């Protein structure tokens, strides 16, 4: 098979400038017009340890990370020891000649310290990789310049000179490494990772309040928002804990601001009481749960999809919710917007379930079409249906028109004591006051649950990719999308038809949208990054259908096409 992509692995200790190098290279590749899938692998420490940044690049569409390495930029000996086994037969390792590496015909020892000061060795490496891949020197240098601009002219100059030195050294040596095919994508694409896309989706949705308590891998959503919050007029707060974060978001939402919080499993554990509060008081809130392996603190910087059941059931009592699970960066943007819409249309908590792999994975994406984006207008849902306002007005849909304290139902400043908003976490009457009346209790339970029908009616159906009437059907959700699709492509032969059913919304499930697909396939396999096939179990619970087999990964690394193919 012709090599479809080139997989570049930059590996070394934390603190060696590996992230900077990789980010500039990422951007340079996207700007040049290539497809890209980036996977970050790092340890839970600030300096030292072993980290790597894998950039899979191609002139053709690629959507998954792969394990075989074509070009290893080893910033230390450990990186060679760890990753040599992943090197393709035609692969190449670039390493500083001062690192005492055994001679090997696939190891290229480069005079880093002769080419530039140690401080700039990552820029030297950037120049070398650019030359090896066949990028244009001036394009890489331009990306480097825009990256370092904020660091001052001096830093920019030194880095650019170092980059050129690396570039020239490779050109003079005439290293034998297959160049990338010329790119064919349009050049003005965006370079985004999953968390950045989520942050931008929230901005485009009209979010006005965001609150968090730092926890990997959710924190970079806050970081991305912080860069733009003043300009876009979003109030952003780091709370004293996750309990406060979600309660603040609920308070903000109660007073009329579309609000979001972001956390990971342990932080979500603290939030669950308030998830239930959102359900009971019917105050919308969007909750991002960026999964990492558990239980408890688990593997803080690795990936897993094991919190589906937790997010599905997190919160006591019965109330409706929706759970989105983006499969890639584009979906992270669009589904975050959808999450705000659903939360605000049904006045209930809505989740975005991602994971470390997607959160940190950069891709090149077509710029989003904002013309079709309608930001949330909280005031639009507040038409005057009752006078005085009844927070929990019993309607057929279960949805009560909202009003905000200090404002009338039309979002005009309130002027009379008739225009009040009362919400309660205890069971309440239509006007929001606590009650212990059993009949009212029944009507309120039913009102809240009626909203679920509406949520169901606008549920995103799973998308199907592959041969019609497949013999082999993979079922996956969230970030396992790309790898499963690429594995399916590889497994397809004249005799075997293969398909993938991917769920980007995992709750509610609407059996009519997928049951036929599953029952008509000869063989079904669930692909998930967890140890117990949680999604397959959910499908069985909701439909009675047993998925025949499963391919599961729970070592903390993302699922790859190779991983799937090897287990067929």
């Amino acid at each position: 098979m012709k090599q479809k992509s080139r997989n570049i692995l930059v590996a070394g200790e934390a603190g060696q400038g590996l992230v900077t190098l990789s980010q500039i290279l990422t951007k340079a590749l996207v700007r040049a017009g290539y497809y890209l899938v980036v996977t970050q692998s790092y340890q839970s420490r600030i300096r030292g340890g072993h980290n790597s940044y894998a950039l899979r690049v191609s002139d053709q569409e690629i959507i998954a990370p792969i394990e075989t390495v074509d070009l290893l930029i080893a910033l230390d000996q450990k990186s060679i020891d760890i990753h040599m086994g992943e090197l393709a037969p035609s692969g190449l390792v670039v390493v500083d000649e001062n690192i005492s590496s055994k001679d090997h015909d696939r190891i290229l020892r480069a005079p880093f310290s002769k080419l530039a000061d140690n401080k700039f060795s990552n820029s030297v490496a950037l120049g070398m990789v650019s030359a090896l891949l066949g990028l244009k020197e001036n394009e890489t240098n331009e990306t480097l310049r825009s990256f370092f601009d904020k660091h001052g002219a001096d830093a920019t100059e030194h880095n650019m000179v170092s980059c050129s030195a690396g570039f020239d050294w490779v050109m003079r040596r005439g290293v034998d490494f297959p160049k990338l095919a010329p790119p064919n994508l349009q050049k003005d694409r965006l370079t985004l990772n999953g968390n950045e896309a989520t942050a931008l989706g929230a901005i485009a949705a009209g979010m006005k309040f965001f609150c968090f308590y730092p926890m990997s891998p959710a924190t970079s959503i806050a970081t991305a928002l912080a860069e733009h919050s003043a300009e876009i007029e979003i109030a952003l707060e780091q709370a004293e804990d996750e309990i406060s974060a979600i309660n603040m978001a609920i308070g903000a939402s109660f007073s009329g601001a579309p609000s979001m919080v972001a956390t990971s499993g342990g932080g979500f554990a603290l939030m669950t009481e308030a998830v239930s509060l959102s359900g009971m008081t019917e105050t919308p809130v969007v909750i991002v749960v960026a999964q990492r392996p558990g239980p408890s603190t688990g593997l803080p910087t690795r990936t897993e999809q094991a919190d589906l059941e937790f997010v599905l059931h997190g919160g006591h009592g019965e109330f409706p919710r929706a759970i989105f699970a983006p499969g890639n960066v584009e979906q992270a943007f669009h589904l975050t917007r959808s999450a705000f819409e659903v939360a605000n249309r049904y006045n209930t908590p809505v989740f975005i379930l991602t994971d470390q792999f997607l959160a940190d994975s950069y891709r090149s994406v077509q710029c989003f079409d904002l013309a079709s984006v309608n930001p949330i207008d909280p005031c639009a849902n507040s038409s005057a249906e009752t006078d005085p306002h009844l927070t929990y007005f019993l309607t057929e849909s279960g949805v009560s028109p909202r009003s905000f304290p200090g404002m009338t139902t039309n979002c005009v400043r309130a002027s009379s004591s008739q225009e009040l908003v009362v919400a309660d976490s205890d069971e309440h009457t239509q006007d929001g006051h606590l009650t212990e009346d059993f009949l009212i209790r029944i009507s309120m339970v039913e009102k809240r649950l009626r909203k679920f029908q509406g949520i169901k009616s606008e549920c995103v159906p799973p998308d199907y990719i592959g041969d019609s009437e497949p013999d082999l059907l993979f079922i996956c959700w969230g970030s396992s999308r790309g790898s499963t699709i690429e594995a399916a492509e590889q497994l397809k032969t004249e005799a075997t038809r293969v398909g993938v059913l991917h769920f980007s919304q995992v709750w509610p499930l609407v059996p009519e949208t997928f049951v036929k697909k599953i029952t008509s396939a000869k063989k079904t396999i669930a692909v998930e990054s967890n140890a117990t096939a949680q999604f397959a179990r959910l499908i069985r619970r909701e439909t009675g259908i047993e998925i025949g087999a499963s391919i599961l990964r729970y070592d903390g690394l993302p699922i790859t096409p190779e991983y799937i193919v090897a287990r067929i």
Partner: protein
Amino acid sequence: MVTLAEYGEYETAWCPGCGNHSILKAMKQALVALKLEPHQVLFVSGIGQAAKAPHYLNANVFNGLHGRSLPVATGAKICNPELTVIAESGDGCSYGEGGNHFLAAIRRNPNITMVVHNNQVYGLTKGQASPTSETGFVTKNQPKGAFSEPFNPVEIAVAMNAGFVARGFSGRIDHLAGLIQEAIKHKGFSLLDVLQPCVSFNKVNTFGWYDQRCYNLPDDYDSSNRQEALIRAEEWGERIPVGVLYRNQRPVYEENFPFVMNGPAAKTKVDMRKVSGILDLYR
């Protein structure tokens, strides 16, 4: 003109003789005296007997979770600074379950008022020791008496440089109403801890117990003197000072977000041209 009538009269679920009734009365008096209309005020409470107070007057209310009134109040205030936001709850709710939020709110300094009904006991759950119960306070759940040292909220608040710290007594309604007004008028976070007898579960700190001990801070008391405030805040036992213990002007939290001062977040629209400009930064 706002009148007491606008704040209404409701049947409560409180025991006859409970200090909560007087705090409610003082609250309504204070709101009327400040000419605040019910729709301009948002009460946020937690869970407990005290936390039901906002249900017994006519105003905007968010009655949330045990211990969580302050985060909700802070979020609501940021997104609509035009509201007068009052967090009102019991001592267990505010200092026990909500202890971390109490400390964070003092540091953050949002322009909200915290009124704590401090009966030194858990009322709604039938008489367990609370964070302010005195060591040795005997209950059915603490038959050997509470082991821990009591939490002194006003001392902690002064020590942390809170903007406004006061203590009131539910037995002195007019004085208390005055303190509530001062607390609401203060720009920034204000704590008003109100001593409140629980006739059902606290047989030690009764109306008489508080009434004998509480004395008003003298007219010449300088509430800007932090050292003096710490001394008075520590005073507890035979004599207990009530009044404004400490005042201190600090930057108000919401002002870190200049745009929120333009009006309620519900009415501001995101500018899609700016969003488009932000997307461009990722090219």
